[in-house]
């Protein structure tokens, strides 16, 4: 499965091993791990709750994977995205790309992350000392996705 949405933490080493299994033509694996930070917009973050829309979210991620595979010469793309309530230092998202050469792996990995930030149906709620707040969409992320 190239796309998973799950509450549990992921095992980066196991996912990389799984992505690479049986393919000796892979020369490059690019990985990205997104992590909950303890600050956002200047406020302390105690927890971050991620919500998704079951069915639609997985479908959107599959579309992003297919898009990346169409644009770059890659063997495989994997997205694992967590949902539920997370604390600072918890990993949120893992993106892995395997390719023959490094340029394709880097580009596809960054492309997937930019799209995840803008298009994928996830919503974040932060708990700060001032209470809970839903995170608003960010302009910067739209700019990043518009590059592609």
């Amino acid at each position: 499965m190239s796309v998973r949405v799950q509450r549990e933490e992921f095992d980066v080493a196991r996912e990389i091993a799984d992505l690479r299994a049986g393919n000796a033509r892979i020369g490059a694996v690019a990985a990205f791990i997104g992590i909950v930070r303890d600050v956002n917009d200047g406020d302390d973050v105690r927890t971050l709750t991620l919500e998704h829309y079951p069915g639609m979210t997985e479908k959107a991620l599959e579309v992003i994977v297919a898009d990346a595979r169409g644009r770059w010469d890659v063997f495989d793309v994997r997205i694992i995205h967590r949902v539920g309530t997370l604390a600072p230092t918890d990993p949120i998202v893992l993106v892995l790309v395997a390719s023959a050469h490094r340029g394709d792996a880097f580009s596809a990995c960054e492309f997937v992350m930019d799209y995840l930030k803008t298009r994928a149906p996830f919503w974040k709620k932060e708990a700060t000392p001032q209470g809970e707040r839903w995170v608003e969409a960010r302009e910067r992320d739209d700019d990043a996705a518009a590059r592609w």
Partner: protein
Amino acid sequence: MVRLVYLARLRDALGSGGESVDLPGDVATVNALLAWLAGRGDAWARELAPGRAVRVAVNHDLAQAHTPIRAGDEVALFPPVTGG
């Protein structure tokens, strides 16, 4: 019957995660659905007023104002996504 799903901040604001409704015959597009729901007043009117950033998906695909809605559809209303 149409299945309505309310997500994230919108679910909190509307006080509901979703409902199944029989739509009047003239409520056959996303725009018409939003106007019909806003007609309930209070939080509905406030949250679904024209100009509010509400996104709509029909059967898990992002929809536009004139996307048709038919019996059996799952229609989700949610704020702009905030990503991973």
